[in-house]
């Protein structure tokens, strides 16, 4: 058994790595830039007053570690260089990527791109005076446009406009050399196309200095003291949340606490109610009792939880009717309040959310139980028990129930991830800072460290749940064994 458990645990490692990799690949291919989202949260023009957005973009990108290559390697066409990730602005990067692909000759494209950069840099050495600044700005505007253009023809048009600007504004004359250099570089693009590269794959190897490696292993030394910002996921450091700049571990600690608590109570209540109902349905098969229970549970299962939650609030939380329960949150008592006061206040706040969390799973578990009980009640040993003259109560309670519960073990595998995944709808309506809300918001804000961690956590607990379920089968049913035997049973 121990050998089996160890084997399963070892399989966890590559499985979790595969999950993390898959999540990572999906995230880098998802539209939306985390830095844009972060900056857009302050999309007030007042904050834009000092033309500092670009610098902020670069700083945030470096702060979040997004200036590194994404993975250990990339497989591209032979048109692409291995240094594109160093270009901070996404639109510039994508435009250059397209030009490089279309043209095929990266050194020639790079020369023209550098020509644009040289022009911009040189423009900063011109005297910034009332009579010169308009022309300088126009020139810079053209250069910046050039960075976002995705074809060589557009570059040429830009160069033409720049040349015209220099010709008509004497104050721009010192830039004539840079403009000419750019012109030469653009000329060299003519006839130097290498389209065949579009069909040749190329592998770029970046080594360990990449986003994925950093997320997984961090940059802190493994032994002894030393500089480093992160220990990496494998050492329990899930990084910094892009959204709040706080450690992901801290964010999860708070959210997990409430989600696990509510889920556990809800699972407990669901089982406590559903198992007797399932048994009753099976025992009273074909009677009005079974039909009544079945119909009620079916209706309950069909009700959407946001609707039930809102109705419960309106009727029982101080809306237009009864003010029996709190409307939202988990209580207002500070940590300094007596423990039992806080206990009862929290419990009182959790009543409505737990009802909403529980009722839907009731029907599901109950149907499982009924079906399992049905099967067991038709087996030979139950017939034998009845033939022996045991009372119906003893037959059901002592023999049938125990055996029918074995099939419920399957549900244990589901319970583990369910306990941490949370419910976005219920957490949102009742303002419970749980995992569902955390993960949903993290995705909306492209807060990938939080999204990765949530995915890994749910993945890990699914694996654990399946293992526990398998082990419980072996405990509950002696016919199941994970130890290989040399002789086969007949």
């Amino acid at each position, binding site marked *: 058994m121990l050998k089996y458990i160890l084997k399963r645990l070892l399989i966890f490692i590559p499985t979790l790595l595969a999950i993390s990799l898959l999540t990572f690949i999906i995230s880098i291919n998802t*539209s*939306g830039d*985390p830095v*844009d*989202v972060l*900056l*857009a*949260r302050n*999309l*007030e*023009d*007042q904050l834009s*007053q*000092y033309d500092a*957005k670009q610098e902020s973009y*670069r*700083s*945030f990108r470096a*702060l979040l570690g997004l200036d590194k290559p994404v993975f250990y390697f990339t497989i591209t066409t032979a048109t692409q260089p291995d240094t594109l990730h160093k270009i901070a602005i*996404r*639109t510039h990067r994508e435009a250059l990527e397209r030009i490089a692909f279309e043209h095929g000759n990266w050194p020639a494209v790079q020369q023209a791109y550098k020509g644009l950069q040289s022009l911009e840099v040189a423009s900063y050495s011109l005297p910034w005076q009332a009579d010169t600044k308009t022309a300088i*700005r*126009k020139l810079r*505007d053209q250069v*910046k*446009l050039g960075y*976002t253009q995705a074809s060589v023809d557009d570059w040429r048009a830009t160069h033409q406009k720049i040349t015209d600007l220099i010709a008509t504004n004497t104050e721009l004359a010192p830039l004539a050399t840079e403009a000419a250099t750019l012109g030469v570089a653009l000329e060299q693009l003519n006839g130097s196309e290498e389209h065949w590269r579009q069909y040749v794959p190329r592998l770029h190897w970046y080594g360990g200095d990449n986003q994925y490696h950093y997320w997984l292993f961090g940059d802190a030394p493994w032994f002894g003291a030393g500089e480093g910002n992160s220990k990496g996921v494998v050492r329990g450091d899930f990084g910094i949340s892009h*959204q*709040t700049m*706080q*450690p992901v571990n801290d964010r999860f*600690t*708070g959210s997990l*606490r409430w989600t696990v*608590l509510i889920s*556990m*109570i809800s699972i*407990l209540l669901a089982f*406590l109610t559903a198992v007797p109902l399932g048994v009753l349905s099976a025992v009273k098969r074909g009677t009005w009792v079974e039909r009544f229970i079945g119909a009620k549970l079916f209706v309950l299962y069909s009700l959407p939880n946001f609707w039930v939650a*809102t109705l419960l609030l309106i009727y029982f*939380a*101080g*809306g237009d009717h009864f003010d029996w329960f709190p*409307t*939202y*949150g988990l209580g*207002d008592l*500070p*940590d*300094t309040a007596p*423990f039992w006061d806080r206990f009862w206040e*929290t419990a009182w706040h959790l009543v409505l959310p737990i009802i909403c969390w529980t009722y839907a799973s009731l029907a599901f578990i109950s149907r499982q139980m009924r079906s399992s009980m049905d099967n067991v009640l038709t087996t030979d040993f139950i017939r034998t028990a009845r033939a022996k003259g045991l009372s119906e109560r003893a037959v059901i*309670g*002592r023999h049938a129930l125990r055996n029918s519960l074995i099939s419920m073990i399957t549900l244990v595998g589901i319970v583990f991830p369910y306990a941490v995944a949370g419910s976005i709808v219920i957490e949102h*309506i*009742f*303002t419970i*800072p749980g995992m569902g809300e955390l993960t949903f918001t993290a995705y*909306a*804000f492209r807060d990938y460290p939080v999204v990765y961690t949530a995915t890994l956590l749910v993945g890990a607990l699914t694996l654990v749940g399946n293992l526990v379920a398998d082990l419980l089968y072996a405990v509950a049913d002696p016919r199941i064994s994970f130890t290989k035997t040399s002789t086969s049973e007949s």
Partner: protein
Amino acid sequence: MKSSTYPHFRFIFVVAFAALLASCGGGEATSETPPEGTEKIAEAAAKEIGGELKVHLVAQVESLNPQIHTGADAGHIIKLVYQALIDIDFETLEISPILAEKRATLEEQPDGTLHITYRIRDEATWANGDPITADDAEFALKISMNAHIDNGNHRNYYEFISDFIKYEDDPKKLTIVSNQKYLLAEAAAGDFYFVPRDTYDPKGLLSEFTIKQMQENWDEIADDPRLIEFGEWFNQKRFQTDPASMKGSGPYEVSEFVTGQRVVLQRKAEWWGDNVKNKSHFFEAWPQIINYQVVKDYATAEVALKGQKLDLMKSIPPDVFLRLRESEQMKKHYDFHTPSMINYSYIGLNTRDVRLSDKAVRHALAHVTNVSQMIDVVLNGLGEQLIGPVHPTNRYYNKDIEPYAYDIERAKTLLAEAGWADSDGDGILDKTIDGTLQELDFNYIFNPNPVREACGQLFAAEARKIGIKINLEVQEFPVYVGNLKSHNFDLFFGKWVQTPLPRDHKQIYHTESYADGHNFVGFGTEESDALIDEIRGELDEDKRGKLNLRFQEICHEESAYIFLFSESNNIIAAKKLDHLIVSEFRVGYWEPSAVIGQN
């Protein structure tokens, strides 16, 4: 046997009960020790006017560090805990001195720099009685200029500051040197928050550096271990969420910060502002406790309001607001306010698109935009039509400009005159430009928002009447922002929120901001660029006002934006809040001025 039937359930029950116990055992709440004087204040609160004000927040506040925070709610709460030299008065919408005795003295220097001089009030002290001086101002600025702070290099916003002058004969006087004449220099040079040096830099890590040095030679000193250590120290979570560590000179201190649930502010028993004569609203702080309660769902918040569990709520969706306003039960306990928020919603037109570069098409689209209908149907009347980017609260709002009339026939004529016709009989107008047949078939992007979607539907229905097809495309916020930045759209719905400060139009309207600024639509003419530049450097308000009048005319004529409306801020406030200041300035109220009486 019977007793062992449900052993697992018992176990689960015990674990669940234990988990509930554990969950009540602290953890997320970071109020380790109650702030000094809390009990005294609580006693006083029971006897005096004041009491507790419960304010609704629709999203959680992540951080109350004045340098590291995001979102308008956090920015607002910070104003009650920390203070700056000046801020905008919520009632007058003018700059009002707080730590400063009066507004800045501005002196243009022969070398082109601008000297912005403030003097800090004599009464201003920290909680321990130490006076707040120019050294504190310098320290606060140095924090901003340290790029190791996790605020996305906020130092860039202070690039205009080239030096900081202190005066030996007057430790309360300071001069901030701006390297240029700039209309927002006074405001920007006075809006940084002060924090006590002994709490935020006990080792004096920044004391050896000067503002001038940090500005001019940052690249050389950036790797100095003291600056790095300070960054790591200041970035700590404790300065963002721990009440024991967050200290400011404002009237309130944070007594509880429970992520995702509430932030509670407690009135200081002794606050320097109480000794100030001729007080502005920034020196009124009547509620003893201001309890910001997070309720993310508006339906839940509506129930909470009906149960009188909240006293103040803002930005309420129009349908919810109107429903509540009609309720007799609500009318008994609450007042309803609809100040016009300083914001503007618009439809942006990509002028670099070959079809939309035709001004006739833009004007035609403006003529089929039925703004009154949008305000009536979508906002339920809770909005105000606008003609440009200057809000009507601004005295230089151009009243002479008439909004484009809703006129289908006029729109048709404009398009016909410009040569747009349905040549292929598909019901959509077209025209051959540079050899290519261009159809007036546009995409309209917006991020998920019922107002934006409904306005788009109305707009598309009207445009169809003149042969223009508009395809609505809802995009997730990150995707939407990405497309705006890369100009990958035909039309989009946008909204800008502003402050009452003078308008610097550069970031949104200057052609230089097209490539990597917020001029997503490619607006701009030579005249508009020149005006924007002139407005930025003009310190005389009247002269600036006249330039703004002309700027609005150009915006109107160009129609790169179809200006729609300013949404009102729908606010519900408990009747027991006397003297609550309701404002056009976001977040829409100044709650410390409210005196809590009997409901």
